């Protein structure tokens, strides 16, 4: 059978450079942050995790910030604030 050549419909792969520090060896004396994605129960989950991190990992401070709604990215000023104040930040994704 004759053959045909077809072009791929898939977009070209985009490479990105991601630079982020590794997680610290432990969280004792550290400040951790949460970006609440506003989905139901994320606030409870962050409450629970924050309490556990304080009790079991020696975390000294927990910062909670909330996006405007689940469908938009966190604003740059919120990210900048957490980046400055926190050693580790947990961002909620999904529901």
């Amino acid at each position: 059978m004759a053959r045909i050549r077809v072009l791929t419909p898939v977009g070209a792969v985009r490479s990105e450079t991601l630079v982020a520090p590794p997680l610290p060896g432990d969280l004792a004396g550290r400040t951790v942050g949460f970006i609440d994605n506003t989905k139901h129960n994320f606030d409870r989950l962050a409450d629970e995790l924050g309490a556990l991190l304080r009790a079991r990992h020696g975390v000294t401070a927990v910062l909670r910030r909330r996006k405007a709604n689940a469908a938009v990215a966190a604003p740059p000023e919120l990210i900048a604030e957490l980046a400055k104040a926190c050693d580790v930040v947990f961002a909620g994704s999904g529901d």
Partner: protein
Amino acid sequence: MAGLPLLVVQHPLGGEPPESVARRAQQALEQLASLLGDPAAAVPTGAIPSAPEAPDLSLPDDPEAVLAEFVARQWCDGLPIIPPTAARVGAMLGGAPPDRALGALPPLWRPATLEKLAVNAVMAGCEPAAFPVLVAAVQAMLDPAFNLYGVQATTHPVAPLVIVHGPVAARIGVHAGSGCFGPGFRANATIGRALRLILMNVGGAWPGRHDMATQGSPAKFAYCIAERVDASPWGPWRAEDAVTVFGGEPPHNVNDHVSTTAAGILATVADTAVSLGSNVGWFLAQSQLLLVLGPEHAATIAADGFTRADVQRHVFEHARLPLRTLKLGGMWGMQDWPAWLSAVRDDDALLPQVPSPDDVFVLVAGGPGKHSAVVPNCTFSRAVSRPLAPPG
């Protein structure tokens, strides 16, 4: 998020009782313990490919073999395709520069070059005359106001509705009459389908993987109409050759066989436009309603002296739900409302579902009959229009 350490929380989280949430927190903490201080969990730096390269292919010149290969590679929607040969893609481009990129399509942020748009347009069965419409639709979707990332990745069944305005609609055969949301018309079917293939193949939104729609909708196959200008008492919504993309739910039927007044028809419209299960209203600043009036309903409304602006204001004033109803479910507790709305305490207060009359769009489409449609948006994407221009 490629490369970032993840704590996987068991789904679902929403709606779970407190003890279940506490258990998920415990499970997440156990995962965290294994990540801390683990060099393997460190974020790698450097080039991170988002997916393997997808090559051009040499295939048997047989429609069934081509379809089988494209299905196996998850390169199509499951329906037969026209093989995108270089000659067909060239004809679709019509001399436009293939490497020109309109922007990066989420969620995988891959460049929407004219060549990739043309390949998908060929597959969908588009005629080259429709290509400028497709290009304008992609440009419109790339406007930040459309929030294409949200539209692509959400669990909501949103699909971009393409509305083709102006004389171009008739020239390329976009149907605006009986059954305009349904099958039978090549331009509607293939422009809508091409857009979906672009969103899947270039954007990377595959069902259950990046397109996280819980159920999706038939509108995700193809969703494209034109205005029935000849039957509109108020003229077209937009007169010039242009495209509007509207991140909508599938059409909600407005059946009113009995009303003989504008108030009667619009009461049925308003009731259809509000329901606890619709996304509209929860993120108020982004909420919009599209009212697609059948010609007979439009004529009845206009006969009472209503202008298009009157229709917009009437729907804005009457498509409302009481606070007590909103508290029953939906997205209560997750709403993104302005302070003046959040301050309402009267459970009987009727709350608006869109921020202003200008967020109710009105056009006429369809054939004989006593039906219209309300298309609620997904509440996190705003309609965007773009004029048509040569794709070069």
